[in-house]
């Protein structure tokens, strides 16, 4: 039997790859986030965190400041632990692009790679240690001819909170003016 001569492992691999390829063949917009390296944040200080996102090829999403009131802006919403304060979220400027469905009106969009920076500020009351920050990126994607319903992408990263350096206090024993 010819089937018996085929390496079964090869058959398994081909079938799995075919299944995955078939599944991917349907166009679907997606935004992904790159793994975020561990962030070390000192108590009482503000630390910037960079989140790198990628919009799948052939799609775009509105920037944080789209040019029409009807368009849904891309927005990051973080839900941080108590006593770790979220600072300013910095969105990149969108690219002003015209699309076949909007030849006369440029839209402010993100496509390809873009980064959002945000500041985290652990208060003095935070116990040093590792904390997981959770949030979501809300976006609404389109291609050149159609738009997809708004979606949310879960966002999470770890922050290692460390103690602030000890404050310098005047120590009379070390004062150069003290002579024994």
């Amino acid at each position: 039997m010819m089937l018996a001569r085929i390496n079964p492992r090869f058959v398994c691999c081909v079938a799995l790859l075919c299944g995955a390829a078939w599944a991917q063949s349907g166009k679907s917009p997606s935004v992904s986030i790159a793994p975020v390296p561990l962030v070390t944040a000192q108590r009482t200080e503000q630390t910037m965190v960079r989140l790198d996102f990628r919009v799948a090829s052939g799609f775009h999403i509105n920037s944080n400041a789209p040019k029409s009131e009807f368009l849904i802006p891309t927005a990051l919403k973080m839900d941080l632990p108590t006593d770790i304060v979220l600072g300013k979220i910095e969105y990149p400027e969108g690219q002003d692009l015209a699309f076949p469905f909007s030849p006369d009106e440029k839209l402010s969009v993100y496509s390809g790679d873009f980064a959002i920076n945000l500041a985290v500020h652990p208060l003095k009351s935070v116990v040093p240690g590792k904390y997981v920050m959770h949030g979501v990126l809300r976006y609404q994607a389109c291609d050149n001819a159609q738009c997809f319903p708004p979606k949310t992408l879960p966002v999470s990263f770890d922050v290692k909170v460390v103690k602030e350096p000890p404050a310098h206090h005047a120590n009379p024993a070390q004062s150069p003016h003290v002579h024994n």
Partner: protein
Amino acid sequence: MSNVEQPDGTPDPQPGPGDELNKSSNGGAQSPGPVHGSGRNPLALVVVAVIAAAMVYFGFHMARRSGSDAPSILGKSTPAPDFTLEKLNGGNLKLSDLRGKAVLLNFWATWCGPCKIETPWLVEMQNQYGNQGLQVIGVAMDDSGKDEISKFAKDMGVNYPVLLGKEAVGDEYGGVPALPESFFIGRDGKIVDRIIGLKGKAEIEDAIKKALKTEAATSAAALQPSK
């Protein structure tokens, strides 16, 4: 404080007796006893591989559909699923009440850029073909409130009924995964064409003409009953 990990850290769990048992059972594969895998049936492996591939496919597919029910595939000559939806300006509209007319059922949303281009064309088509029996119906698939939809419709000069869409109705029409999406329904209540995404005005007009050419159904069962 809602931290997930304790700052001091928790020691990793030590291997328990169950782990030892598992190791023992794994080790059995290397024991000199009878090995059932030596006589692998290639057909069984192919079946397993096909099942695995199907699982991978459906996993991806279902993830993409964001948990909605698998849509039915609506082809040409399929009776248009009937529904009743609330109109933007008050009252309800039942699709089957339009029997005898050609219907352009347009799914759209305020956040959809291509819809903004297409809507003036639909207004034009309603003006041009309304007296021949065309009825354009907009189904707004927005999460936003009536006010925003009303503002958009007013800005666009919409001259046809706008309905407040529901996911269940979208599912009846194949899930409507992207907007705009239009169904052209003949006078007999059957789908004659479907356009996904923004296409040319000429394509829309051709599909309208096809719908207008259809004969009204004599049977009352042309439209599927509403659910």
